[in-house]
């Protein structure tokens, strides 16, 4: 009989890393357990950064994932404020920037992502990114006094930050590559409602492609678009996507291709696993590898990977249903599965006019995604349809199919 690992190092102390460590203990792992984090902070939750932290509604302490004593109690050794420099797989050692070498008979890679940069954004004062707590606090400070803010990139992060910045009095222009922000991600009805909220808030949305950041005398002056336009700005938030943090894995023999390439179990190589934003896992439906940057995906991957790491032959595929939400002023939007790649949409309950509805998005007759606006409970009823890729019958809940309905099948 083989014995399980006795020295596990989890690299990355965001939600994926900390949930991995906690799950290992909950599942009975009794060996040494180290959690390494580049940031000096105890593990915290990122979604509130672009919402309650940026708007100043919450104190930073409020987003801590666990009270400080929990790590001691669980026997999780924290190495915070130090980044990782190298994985030596043959020696089974993780090297840190302060020279520490951590022996590891199993490693979990949870180093997450970092913001993509734009040409010219490195250096001038007034250019911000939003990934860490320190980023959020710095941006919040920069927004005092109602500056002109240009948000480059209108994904979830860019739109949420734009709304929070507007609420704190900034003059905000949001640059969107799509005609309406979030169109491909949440579908036309929900994106349309968010666009209306943006207008009501006095937030300018400008379609375009950002090519770079302009500056003079060490301070940002604006954002340049592909059509030559210069959008003048005192403060710029670069929110044009992320890159996985995998540079430290060079020479480790792991396959890296937009993230750490894993098998269906979340394993990159014998003894090396990955979870969260950095992990590239096979999509159970298409088989194609892909990464998710969603909060619940990170948690569920981490739980599954921790269990698989200890399970030996009992390991099970890591395939959480994609789910994300966004809060924009008075709209709460939730999405199960995916809207991208679907070709029709059916409103199930409520209506966009009421600013309250659920809808399913189908590819052909198969349900691939469910979107809810301000109906969080009803959204749950659509989840099983997305999970099973059900044929859309027009009957999301309620009694089983009867004769009169069965013809549609």
């Amino acid at each position, binding site marked *: 009989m083989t014995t399980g690992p006795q020295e596990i190092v989890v690299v990355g102390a965001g939600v994926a890393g900390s949930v991995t460590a906690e799950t290992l203990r909950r599942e009975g792992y009794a060996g040494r357990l180290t959690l390494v984090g580049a940031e000096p902070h105890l593990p915290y939750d990122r*979604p509130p950064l672009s919402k309650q932290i940026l708007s100043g509604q919450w104190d930073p302490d409020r*987003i801590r994932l666990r009270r400080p004593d929990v790590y001691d109690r669980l026997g999780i050794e924290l190495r915070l404020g130090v980044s990782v420099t190298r994985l030596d797989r043959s020696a089974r050692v993780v090297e840190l920037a302060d020279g520490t070498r951590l022996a590891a008979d199993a490693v979990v890679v949870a180093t997450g992502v970092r913001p993509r940069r734009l040409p010219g954004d490195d250096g001038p004062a007034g250019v911000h990114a939003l990934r860490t707590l320190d980023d959020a606090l710095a941006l919040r400070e920069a927004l005092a006094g109602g500056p002109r803010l240009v948000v480059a990139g209108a994904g979830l992060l860019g739109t949420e930050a734009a709304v929070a910045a507007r609420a704190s009095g900034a003059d905000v222009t949001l640059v969107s590559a799509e005609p309406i922000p979030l169109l491909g991600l949440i579908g036309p009805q929900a994106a349309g409602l968010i666009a209306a909220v943006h207008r009501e808030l006095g937030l300018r949305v400008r379609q375009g492609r950002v090519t770079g950041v302009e500056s003079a005398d060490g301070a940002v002056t604006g954002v340049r678009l592909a059509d030559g336009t210069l959008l003048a700005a005192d403060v710029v938030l670069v929110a044009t996507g992320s890159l996985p943090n995998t540079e430290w894995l060079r020479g480790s023999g792991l396959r890296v291709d937009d993230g750490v390439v894993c098998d269906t179990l979340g394993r990159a190589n014998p003894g090396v696993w990955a979870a969260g934003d950095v992990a590239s896992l096979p999509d159970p439906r298409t088989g194609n590898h892909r990464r998710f940057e969603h909060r*619940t995906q990170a948690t*569920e991957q981490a739980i599954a990977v921790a269990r698989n790491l200890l399970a030996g032959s009992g390991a099970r595929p890591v395939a959480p249903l994609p789910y994300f939400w966004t809060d924009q002023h008075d709209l709460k939007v939730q999405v199960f599965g995916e809207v991208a790649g679907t070709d029709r949409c059916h409103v199930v309950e409520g209506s966009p006019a009421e600013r309250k509805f659920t809808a399913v998005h189908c590819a052909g007759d198969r349900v691939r995604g469910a979107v809810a606006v301000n109906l*969080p*409970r009803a*959204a*749950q009823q659509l989840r099983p349809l997305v999970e099973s890729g059900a044929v859309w019958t027009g009957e999301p809940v309620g009694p089983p199919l009867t004769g009169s309905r069965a013809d549609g099948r």
Partner: protein
Amino acid sequence: MKINVDRDRCVGAGQCVLAAGAVFDQNVDDGLVELLQAEPSEELRDAVSEAQLICPSGAIELLT
């Protein structure tokens, strides 16, 4: 086992209901967490711990 939920933090993801439907529900109007029992029996501990871990907003606290 004693638990506490923070409705100010809750984001209405409904993950807790999936993990421990005997203990958690979502309010019909706002979708936020409702506690069906604040002191569930010990046999529900695994399910409640799972709900706590899986909650995307850290809104569930296990007090004992």
